[in-house]
């Protein structure tokens, strides 16, 4: 069996994305936890958002149309009691202490994912684009394959970094050479298996190399650049660093200049300051290496 097949097989058994133990605890605290707080925690956490979209899209509650964002999912669930039922059964039952191999503790992964999401949305706004509402969710979920590889697969980061620095490969290409699959494709495949809508899974799958997507999707373009921006800003960077390629075609298509990028970067950093409490919740001794 190839390494790729082994990884895909291991991920077939994954029934829910992990989150950090304190956050899972906060979600299951009981009736004193209000819905606004629950919503804020879920919509800024890639694992919890993926789990919620999975259970909601698989349920009868969302039969008329695919549910694309955590907010829509919570609207579909209607009441705090139903949301809590879903949380206790399928949204927050697992937690991790460290995303092994990628040199990221959960709080860093969370920070980085949230930064990608905000950057993608702010970029649309700065460019005056009327982008669909799931830009934020697609950005938030884009790196989820890393969570999978880190939590469920033994990844030898040294060998991947050796390929990056000694052979000059981009990080995702080195992953592919080493594992037979990169984290973007793996994330896309898993979310597709879970029944998440194609509008999200294709962005997750192609966000590192949008030119390989056979079609045109403004959300994909925005998340590609949002991911680049998040890496440049540096919040929650892992060992993969800035070792990814920027698509000149996407940059041209969106009409991005360094001035636009600077403006968006400044907006993102200001917005992140209102979210540090969420990141701190995930960075205590339980969650740190």
């Amino acid at each position, binding site marked *: 069996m190839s390494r790729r097949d082994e990884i895909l097989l291991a991920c077939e058994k994954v029934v829910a994305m992990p989150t950090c133990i304190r956050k899972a605890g906060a979600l299951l605290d009981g009736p004193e936890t209000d819905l606004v707080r629950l919503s804020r925690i879920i919509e800024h956490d890639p694992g919890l958002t993926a789990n919620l979209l999975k259970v909601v899209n698989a349920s009868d509650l969302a039969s008329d149309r695919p549910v694309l964002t955590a907010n829509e999912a919570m609207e579909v669930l209607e009441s705090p009691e139903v949301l809590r039922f879903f949380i206790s059964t399928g949204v927050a039952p697992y937690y991790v202490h460290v995303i092994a191999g990628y040199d990221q503790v959960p709080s860093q992964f969370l920070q980085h994912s949230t930064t990608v999401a905000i950057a993608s949305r702010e970029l649309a706004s700065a460019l005056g684009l009327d982008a669909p509402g799931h830009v934020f969710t697609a950005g938030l979920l884009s790196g989820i394959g890393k969570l999978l590889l880190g939590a469920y697969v033994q990844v030898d980061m040294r060998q991947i970094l050796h390929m990056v620095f000694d052979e000059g490969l981009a990080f995702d290409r080195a992953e592919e050479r080493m594992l037979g699959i990169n984290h973007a494709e793996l994330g896309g495949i898993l979310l597709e298996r879970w029944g998440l809508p194609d509008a999200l899974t294709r962005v997750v799958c192609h966000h590192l190399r949008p030119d390989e997507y056979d079609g045109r999707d403004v959300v994909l373009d925005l998340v590609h650049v949002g991911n680049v921006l998040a*890496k440049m800003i540096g919040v929650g960077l*892992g060992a993969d*660093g*800035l*070792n990814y390629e920027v698509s000149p075609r996407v*940059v041209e298509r969106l009409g991005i200049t*360094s*001035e636009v990028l600077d403006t968006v970067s*400044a907006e993102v950093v200001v917005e992140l300051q209102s979210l540090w409490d969420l990141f701190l919740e995930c960075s205590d001794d339980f969650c740190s290496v």
Partner: protein
Amino acid sequence: MNNTHVVGISDMKLSTNPGDVIVTYSLGSCLGVTVYDPKERMGGMVHCLLPSAAAAKEKARANPFMFVNTGVAMTVRRLVDLGADKNRLIFKAAGGANMRQDRIFDTGVRNFDALMKLLERNHRQLTARDVGGTIPRTLFLYLDTGRVVVRSLGKESDL
């Protein structure tokens, strides 16, 4: 009591306590700059997101540390206010990374250029640097000796 001061993005910390350490994590394209007076054993560190306030003047007024040109100048001013001698200050820098093969945005390069222009204009020199490339960096300043350490991918080196 000795403390570790953590510098966030678009943030600055300084200390006059020789037992303290100042650190900033996750430098991507941002530039971390340390400023140290070896006689007074006081220093500061600033973590700048962007080269200059030209694109966002309002934000520079609200937070000068977001930008290299205003952030480094403000750090020096604050240290001088605390008793540092401007002519003794030692400047070191780390960060300024760029995306792989990226010549489109070049934020890391622009950040470092902004620092060099600022220092040149003020007839100051950069004593040491670890900038560019594609790696994330963590930067430490030890106030007792002015030692500056860069940690990246699990390895530490003195600057």
